[in-house]
């Protein structure tokens, strides 16, 4: 049983113009098989308009334990949000 087929991640863009979204994973030997399996496993009810398959080994993920320092730079920049600014009520629609 040592010959496990490689793992692929599946991303699908749905009907409503949204971006591709991760839906799960599957095993396949190559891209063509991954694509066919993705169709059969994840779009049996017309869920998708487009499929991406990516070998899981190719994905680089951020490290959860380092999420502090990673996201820290954006924490104190509250002026990036519209609510930072006080707009007088007389000034409508801005």
């Amino acid at each position, binding site marked *: 049983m040592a010959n496990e087929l490689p793992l692929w991640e599946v991303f699908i863009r749905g009907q409503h113009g949204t971006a591709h979204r991760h839906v799960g994973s599957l095993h396949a030997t190559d891209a063509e098989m991954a694509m066919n399996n993705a169709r059969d496993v994840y779009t049996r009810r017309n869920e998708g308009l487009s499929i991406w398959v990516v070998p899981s080994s190719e994905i680089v*993920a951020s490290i959860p334990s380092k999420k502090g320092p990673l996201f820290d730079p954006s924490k104190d920049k509250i002026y990036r949000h519209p609510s930072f600014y006080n707009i007088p009520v007389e000034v409508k629609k801005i």
Partner: protein
Amino acid sequence: MYAQEVKSTGSKPKSLSSMSAKEKAFQEKIDRGQRIEPKDWMPEGYRRTLLRQMGQHAHSEIVGQLPEGNWISRAPTLERKTILLAKVQDEAGHGLYLYSAAETLGKSRDEMTKELLSGRAKYSSIFNYPTLNWADMGAVGWLVDGAAIMNQVPLQRTSYGPYARAMVRICKEESFHQRQGFDIMMKMSFGSKKQKAMAQDSLNRFWYPSLMMFGPSDSESVHSAQSMAWKIKINFNDELRQKFVDQTAPQAEYLGLTIPDEKLKWNEKTEQYDYSEPNWEEFFEVISGNGPCNTERLAARNKAWDDGEWFRDGLLANSTKNQNSQIAAE
């Protein structure tokens, strides 16, 4: 349910004050209703219990194809055949969603397959009962998928992200399963005398095994207490079983069928049905390998795996060859 006997750590859940800082932060995250994701820190017991439960759940979906697959080639009409085929294909998909959720915890698919094939991992007792005639396709969809839905709907809120998301997909697909089963039951119950007798016979055989799907009473179980603290399990077994009986009894009445339980009756005071417990001795026999079809089911899964070996090997050899010739061309 699909995971009827999930052993957890075997001890009572720890109190917040006796937890390490890490454990406490983890528990509080769950208490706040936040999801645990694959790379997050988690107690070893949580990981192990979750893997056991998702494994049992996935194996149940896969083995669950066998009793219905048995009737695909003998469905009474082409329409029924395509419907049953689609339903069984969904179950294969459910197994795959769950295996891939389990894989996020670092357990390989082959390892899980090996546990099923060797008989080490459990799957739901219900799939060790035979499907003897076409009416059983009705009863299985109506009762077995009906019971599965009862359990799976709350699991959409389970604490482990990949598991919860798999359950959302599964639940979306399950209600078709139950409805096509009920549709078969209606056809049979409102058909000829002989058809109705078949439907009744099928209900007689599947009623108690369906009640067993929820597992024995677990309000005193330390395993369930720990799983519930971790939100791997949401309801007690008796709670869901009662809900199932309350939902199903009026449906049987609509069909003009009799649930094989003399004690079954509406209780004005409790506002729920009184009913008889299934035979739990039988349940423990079935779950430990001695049900009517355990040997047959495992043999079928082993045969499928062994017969497919040359094909899997061929696929891998072919892709390795292609990669090598690509490298050579570069």
